[in-house]
């Protein structure tokens, strides 16, 4: 199979993720969508790595995973504390500050 198709897949996943960020209210889901975007990136890295025949992309993918994991830690901490305060994980509820 042409590796380019994986790129299309990556782009699709990225778009799905981005769309999810834009349309979902629940912070956790939004966050998951971001993770999906990161994964799409990973896929792209791996595909490009394969196409170029060097390992950089695959190594980057590992880094991305680590970073994503760290992000999860931080992100969940924040979201959870928000949830505990407001009893809601909706990102739209958090709109005290505006204008």
């Amino acid at each position, binding site marked *: 199979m042409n590796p380019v198709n994986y790129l299309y897949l990556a782009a699709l996943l990225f778009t799905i993720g981005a769309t999810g960020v*834009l349309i979902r209210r629940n912070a956790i889901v939004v966050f998951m969508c971001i993770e999906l975007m990161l994964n799409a990136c990973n896929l792209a890295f791996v595909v490009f790595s394969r196409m170029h025949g060097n390992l950089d992309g695959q190594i980057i993918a590992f880094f991305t995973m680590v970073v994503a994991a760290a992000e999860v830690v931080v992100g969940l901490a924040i979201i959870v504390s928000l949830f505990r305060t407001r009893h809601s994980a909706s990102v739209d509820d958090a709109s005290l500050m*505006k*204008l």
Partner: protein
Amino acid sequence: MENLIALLIAAPLLGAAVLLVGGRRLDAVGQWIGTLLSAASFVFGLILFADLLGKNAEHRTLTQHLWTWISVGSFQADVTFRLDQLSMTFVLLITGVGSLIHLYSVGYMEHDERRRRFFGYLNLFLAAMLLLVLADNYLLLYVGWEGVGLASYLLIGFWQHKPSAATAAKKAFLVNRVGDMGLSIAIMLMFTTFGSFAFGPVFSHAGDASEGKLTAIGLMLLLAACGKSAQVPLQSWLGDAMEGPTPVSALIHAATMVTAGVYLIVRSAAIFNLAPDAQLAVTVVGAVTLLFGAIVGCAKDDIKKALAGSTMSQIGYMILAAGLGPIGYVFAIMHLVTHGFFKAGLFLGAGSVMHGMNDEVDMRRYGGLRKYMPVTFITFGLGYLAIIGFPFLSGFFSKDAIIEAAFAKGGTQGWILGGAALLGAAITAFYMTRVMLMTFFGEKRWQPDENGNEPHPHESPKVMTIPMVLLAFGSVFAGGLFSIGDRFLNWLEPVTGHSEGHSPISAATVTGATMVCLVIGVGIAWAQYGRKPVPAVAPRGSLLTRAARRDLLQDDFNHVVLVRGGEHLTRSLVYVDHTLVDGVVNGTAAGFGGLSGRLRRVQNGFARSYAVSMFGGAALLVAATLLMRAV
């Protein structure tokens, strides 16, 4: 001897400075300081006069250079004085009449608490007037020109607590400013034409300039003269100027300052001689004004305003004469001098009457005063005779000469101008007789004022009557003194030049016609005011009379067009400034504020909409980058 010239000015200037800065401690002696310094100036004038007389006619010009005033590039203005026959004449008139009026004022202003300042202003006026006539260039003349305007302003408005006085003063200054504008434009024209505005270079190069330029200069000088000498169309201030104390009216608004316009034109003879169109304009202005003033003078019941109309008219004669060119210059000045005497005398007489009548100015409230104020009556009477041109008094010689010269202009112009002058003589006789009759003859008509104080007419103190007597002497004899043997003509000719015109009618005819006019004028006046009692309340009068009472509607015109129009203009400009000029700026500010308020709403607090904006931004960024490559 030249060095004395500066002292002429310095003496009254010092007086002004001392009196105005000196403060209250000079209150007691202020009037004497002022009079003394004025007299000192007169004495200097006499010394210089004697000196000039001792010289040949062609060496009778003294100059004194004091310092360079302004010097920028080719623009050179010096403080230099020129004393020649013309300025000498004025110096003597100014300081002489001035000193007399100072003296008179000592009595007249005796009870005024601000007397010190009055004398300060009078001295200031003398200094400025002397500067005007002694200046050797037009810019320095301009200083004197505005200086007398200032003094006039201060003195007209001397009784500032009276709103009418303050308004009159302001009006005088403003109308004069319009004239001054003419003078400054004339100076600028001289500068661009001749590269100088000193008398010497301008007069000597006048022949090199184009007639158009000379005409322009001449017209601008005429405008200046109109302002200062209360000629149509800038005459409206003079009547109101009578709000000032009467000595002021005598000195400034009769004898000296208002004649400055005549001086200016005669002084600029070299320019006018080469600009016939400008000369014509001068004569027209003179003729119109002499009638205008005379008509106004007929209708006024206020003694000072009647005299003011007369002044206007008499100056009209002078201007007319000055416009005639070399045939008229000398007579203009001669009439100026004699007029200085008799008009000053008349005003002082009027002042004396008012002094005795609780400052009443309405002639309809006078009557029969000759019994109460004999000296005033006699001096006033002599002045009256002089002004109407009673034979062999001053006015007879000088006015007659002007009427002759007007006919001598020749052609249709000569007939028209001469006719106007003759008509003026008749009207003069009428209104002056009217004044005389209403004031000194008939029944007494005065009544108690609102406070119940009935006037007790009485003769004025010596300090006031002496100047009146002296001026009466001048009124009687000056004309004869000047004319017999053409003394005045010979004296002035080196400066002004002179030529005999070609009169279509003989001098004797003119004199005869003038006499006829005089008799007619006196007769009508007698018929109206002498034969029957004068009503205490003015009758409604004919249309012309009513118009003349209102200065021939000129003030109404000014009021409607200039004052109202100006108010509308400034008010609408204030509006424009606020709404338009400022509005644009404030509008811009408000516009940004509104834009800000609208843009601000984009920041709605929802993280997801922020994400949308980012996403959109990213898309745009990508699209734009791609587009850039595509282009």
